[in-house]
């Protein structure tokens, strides 16, 4: 699959409509070779449709999809150089592990020798740490093991791109984090492009090196996990990726100061690229610190709940006129003992932590 083209997959103005319903609207996307891209969004946002269009299970209504520079419209799934890990694994129930993994190899023409098949199956099984499981029946295995069989089956054909449809959704939390690390390792070892579909922002942020946030059939933002988290393009992204506290304000003509509902001024630190007038502000829970109420800070309130999370503490603070604010603090910052339900506190934060968006933005 070596070629000079920089991108493995390209979407050019791709739209997919089912009758009157448009699932994906005018998507333009380039996935560079060797990258790990996560399509992230709530259910119904079109992310799975995008993945299925790459796999060849759906055809775009408009636009083109290119894989390694070749146009794929009309090319059936069995002729595409991509393989997929299906959401519920879709392992063949009448085959054992070995037969499942060998299935793709047996489809190859010209045929490959049995010894070569055996060798490559063993290699794939060892990559997913399933040595010794070759003769097992798949329904006798745990969810995590089935997941690995599905992975081995998908990588054994050495695809240019591996597609993963919610691969970890059926696993319990501990196994999920272990698999996140394994998938990342596997991607580095294979050096092929991974495209992951997930609704779990934590999964997307932790594994992918590019996150593509989608909603209502459109791409909202593409960027590194850090960029998407720290500099969300709009209120939807800010809200979907991580938690936020949002409140409305009016931006002054200097575009530097926001006026809160009670008339207090809040400095935004730098001039924002927004039209003066109604805006929405957002704060990450971890960007806020709690201090004893002193009347000087614009946002003050009463702690209503304190939730111990193990690694940190989460507070709910009721701020008069603004509703509930969520504040998290790390245990190492030594603040854990500071506030208790009923305490009057001020919310303090640096101006750089304030995200400001157009008020009209839906989320």
């Amino acid at each position, binding site marked *: 699959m070596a070629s000079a083209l920089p991108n493995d997959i390209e979407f050019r103005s791709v739209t997919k409509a089912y009758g009157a319903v448009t699932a994906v609207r005018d998507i333009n996307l380039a996935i560079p070779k060797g990258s790990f891209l996560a399509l992230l969004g709530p259910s119904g946002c079109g992310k799975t449709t995008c993945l299925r269009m790459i796999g060849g299970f759906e055809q775009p209504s408009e636009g083109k999809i290119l894989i390694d520079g070749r146009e794929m419209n009309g090319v059936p799934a*069995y002729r595409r150089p991509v393989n997929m890990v299906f959401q*519920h694994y*879709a392992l063949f129930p009448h085959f054992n592990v070995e037969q499942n993994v060998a299935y793709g190899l047996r489809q190859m023409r010209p045929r490959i020798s049995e010894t070569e098949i055996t060798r490559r199956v063993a290699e794939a099984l060892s990559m997913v740490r399933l040595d010794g499981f070759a003769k097992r029946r798949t329904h006798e295995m745990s969810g995590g093991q089935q997941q690995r069989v599905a992975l081995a089956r998908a990588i054994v054909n050495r695809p240019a791109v591996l597609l993963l449809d919610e691969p970890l959704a059926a696993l319990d939390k501990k196994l999920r984090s272990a698999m996140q690390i394994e998938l990342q390792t596997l991607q580095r070892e294979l050096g092929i492009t991974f495209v992951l579909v997930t609704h779990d922002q934590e999964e997307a942020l932790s594994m992918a090196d590019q996150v593509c946030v989608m909603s209502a059939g459109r791409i909202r933002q593409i960027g590194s996990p850090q960029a998407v988290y720290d500099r969300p393009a709009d209120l939807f992204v800010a809200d979907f990726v991580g938690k936020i506290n949002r409140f409305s304000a009016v931006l002054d003509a200097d575009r530097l100061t926001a006026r809160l509902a009670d008339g207090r001024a809040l400095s935004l630190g730098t001039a924002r690229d927004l039209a003066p007038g109604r805006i929405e502000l957002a704060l990450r829970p971890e960007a806020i610190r709690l201090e004893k109420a002193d009347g000087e800070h614009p946002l003050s309130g009463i702690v209503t709940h304190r939730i111990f999370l193990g690694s940190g503490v989460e507070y709910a603070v009721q701020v008069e006129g603004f509703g509930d604010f969520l504040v998290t603090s790390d245990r190492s910052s030594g603040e854990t003992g500071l506030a208790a339900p009923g305490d009057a506190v001020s919310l303090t934060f640096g101006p750089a932590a304030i995200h400001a968006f157009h008020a009209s933005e839906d989320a």
Partner: protein
Amino acid sequence: MALTQATRKKLVTLALVGPAGLWLGLFLVLPFIAMVVFSFGRRAPEGGYQAAFTFEQFANLGSRAAAFANTLMLAPVGALACLLIAYPVAYYLAVKAAPRHRLLLVSLVVVPFWTSLLVRTYAWMYLLGARGIPHLLELIGIENVRLINTPMAVLLGIVYGYLPLMIMPIYVSLEKLDRRLLEASADLGAKPVSTFFGITLPLSLPGVMTGLALVTILLLGEYLIPQLLGGGKVFFIGNALVDLFLQSRNWPFGSAIAVTLVVVVVIVLTIAMRIAWRFAGTRQVDLV
């Protein structure tokens, strides 16, 4: 009130299984035992059964070889013919037909059951008889075509009568086939034909085997179709049994034939199910 948990459980089991068990015991197991006993007996001079222990009835099985041959040939062949026609229909209904038409189409398969098989077979008797299709063929110059009272007529009647019984189990097994498995197969590079033979067909084998077993079992005891469409020429074991019990009143010989048939059916079914389990890899083969 002193019923223990275990006793109560046993009572519930008894209440659930009891009626059916009693029914089967009285009307299946007991008659079967009687039949086995009869098969070792002798025909009384005035007809019926005379107690004895002899193998002469079984030794005489050869005199009904034609009935055995017809049954053991036409029943599996008929079932296979049903399968060849039923599979594409079931595949279309389960996979290709638009879901909103599916219920209607599946109901159409069952519609023939609304009239009695006797009436419908009688209609075929007329169609295949001298004044039916052969008469029409004579009009266009093809003469001396004999359809009625041939093995082909019996086979046609069999396929006509038993097709729905073959379509339904295959339809059910194809309908519950996970479509993602077909996608996974295509994803791994299998062309549609390879997907059919590698995934679809093996996974629908339980339905195929159920259909084959169901139709074959019913056909082994078939009486009506050979009687009407086979005349006296193509007769099944069922027809021989009616003769022996009702006409010549040779109960022991009839019993010996019936017992032999049961043994043959059990052997055939056991082998068939073994094969199905091997291929399907599961024990979810219905019926047995």
